[in-house]
């Protein structure tokens, strides 16, 4: 039986003009998702085509105007062909015997960085949520803490890295001593907590007066109001904040690896390969792709979280 027939039957049974069956919102269809994947692939291809086109049109030495280079060089050293970059991925990292293929080295470096970024993200989310809860609970805390939260993000990462390392090196809890990767995770969390604190606070404050009045009429406690109303209502605000936090954690990890000098991650690899780019230009692009992959993985994991929380996003316009 068709859905419409079923709807008519229901309407006829209750015989009420107010009973108009509104169709349930269409779930994000398989076709929609396939289209999005296709658009993604097309986007990558279009970028590659543009790259090659630029190489053809612009001369090797770029374009100079009054002695200033306004368009960058297109020589094979500055901009290797896309196919060379891809092919390089499948060659060994170095000429040394038994060296791993480049793609494997990049993947393991990306995995290492992802682990640190994930730890930083989790710390950032916990701290951000805790701050948001505090600010929601006490309006005094909101006016006292929020400006500092905003101000904290104006401290440049480069200034922060050595500070964190120095403070950390003075810490020693029993047999566990501070290690460089911990400094990197702390810096990643420093960038990650900000969007969470701000987004979660907005979400926790988002319920309408009618909802808070209702819960008050039910004599609900602060905790009950938080669990049944404020936290669920904050999900549509929280998810974009978590996504931003994931992107920030990845950037923070990559940059902090470089400024702290932590080996093994993708940030350090980008630096090392760039320094040896002269003899092997396509090689230095590999870890950059790795960093992009890292960002995609991080954003994708948060998107999965969003699928799990679908119920709390009804009526939300999906971007």
């Amino acid at each position, binding site marked *: 039986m068709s859905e419409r027939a079923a709807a008519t039957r*229901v309407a006829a*049974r*209750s015989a*009420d*003009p*107010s*009973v*108009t*069956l*509104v*169709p*349930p*919102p269409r779930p994000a269809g398989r076709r929609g998702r396939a289209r999005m994947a296709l658009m993604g692939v097309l986007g990558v291809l279009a970028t590659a085509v543009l790259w090659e086109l630029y190489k053809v049109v612009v001369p090797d030495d770029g374009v100079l105007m009054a002695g200033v280079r306004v368009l960058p060089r297109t020589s094979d050293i500055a901009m290797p062909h896309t196919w060379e970059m891809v092919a390089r991925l499948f060659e060994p990292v170095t000429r040394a015997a038994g060296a791993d293929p480049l793609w494997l080295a990049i993947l393991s470096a990306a995995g290492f960085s992802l682990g640190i970024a994930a730890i930083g993200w989790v710390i950032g989310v916990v701290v951000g949520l805790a701050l948001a809860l505090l600010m929601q609970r006490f309006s005094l805390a909101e006016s006292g803490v929020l400006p500092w939260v905003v101000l904290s993000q104006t401290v440049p990462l480069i200034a922060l890295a050595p500070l964190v390392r120095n403070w950390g090196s003075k810490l020693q809890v029993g047999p566990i001593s501070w290690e460089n990767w911990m400094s990197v995770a702390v810096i990643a969390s420093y960038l990650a907590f900000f969007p969470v604190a701000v987004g979660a606070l907005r979400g926790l404050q988002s319920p*309408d007066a*009618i*909802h808070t*009045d*209702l*819960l*008050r*009429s*039910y*004599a*609900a406690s602060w905790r*009950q109001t938080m669990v*049944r*109303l404020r936290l*669920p209502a904050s999900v549509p605000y929280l998810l974009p904040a978590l996504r931003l936090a994931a992107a920030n954690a990845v950037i923070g990890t990559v940059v902090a690896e470089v400024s702290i000098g932590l080996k093994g991650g993708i940030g350090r690899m980008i630096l090392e390969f760039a320094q040896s780019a002269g003899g092997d230009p396509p090689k230095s692009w590999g870890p950059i792709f790795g960093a992009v992959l890292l960002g995609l993985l991080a954003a994708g994991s948060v998107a999965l979280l969003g699928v799990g929380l679908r*119920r*709390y996003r*009804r*009526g939300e316009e999906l971007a």
Partner: protein
Amino acid sequence: MSSGRKNAAPTTGAAVSVGRLDKVFDTKGGTVHALQGIDVEVAAGEFVSLIGPSGCGKSTLLRIIADLEQPTGGTVTVFGKDARRARLDQDYGIAFQQSGLLGWRTIAANIELPLELHGVGARDRHARSAELLDLVGLTEFADRFPDQLSGGMQQRVAIARSLAERPNLLLMDEPFGALDEMTRERMQTELVRICAETGAAVVFVTHSIPEAAFLSDRVVVMSPRPGRIQRVVDVDVDLGPAHERTDALREDRRFFGAVTAIREALHAGSASAGTPDGAQRITGPTGPDDRHDRLTEPA
């Protein structure tokens, strides 16, 4: 034992008793005298409507009874307790113009929300929501979400939710205000039936004169700036008890008589707001002291 009797005794008396109530809002733009010298008594099982122009303090009065707002003067008791105690004891159910359903909960789960908050077990909760869904005719929508229901259906869910704790008092602030006229009349008839079945007293805020006439035992007519009671119209004298009414009454001459009586009371109120002389001619149920206040007050 004796304390139990003490608690039970007032339930046989007034459902709501409001005496010399004052409410002043302090805002940045100055003070707003929302309510002045309000005296209302609602008997158990009685249906009382509050009607009056926008801003005359109807919602404020209802919210004070619900302990969602604090009075600046006067007393409020609900079943003999102070308003806060009554709220903590869940003595009333409340519904607003918007349904206020939580979008991530199913219809049944929305109705069960107050029960869940008060620690009622899952089995009892489901039984109660099934009962209430049946009462408002939405049984087949139990597992739907609010955004899948029309406005009228959502409002019926909100009313079902307000009944979840079997309160002896319902507080309703223009619950049908956002509905079309057809749906509105259906809902009124349904509310009459629900009140007859539950025996609850109702304080009902409305803008609509026919709605007040059809539903109420008594209609409290209010006037603005400051909000006060203009007159009380006893509808039940002509139309009989509110919970015994049927749709047929809507075309009855006595119904039109009640509508006219409420309209005249309302218009007398707006006349008095314009000219100080108007107030002198009004003889409401309020005492002579009250009238004296009104005369000496600058209009």
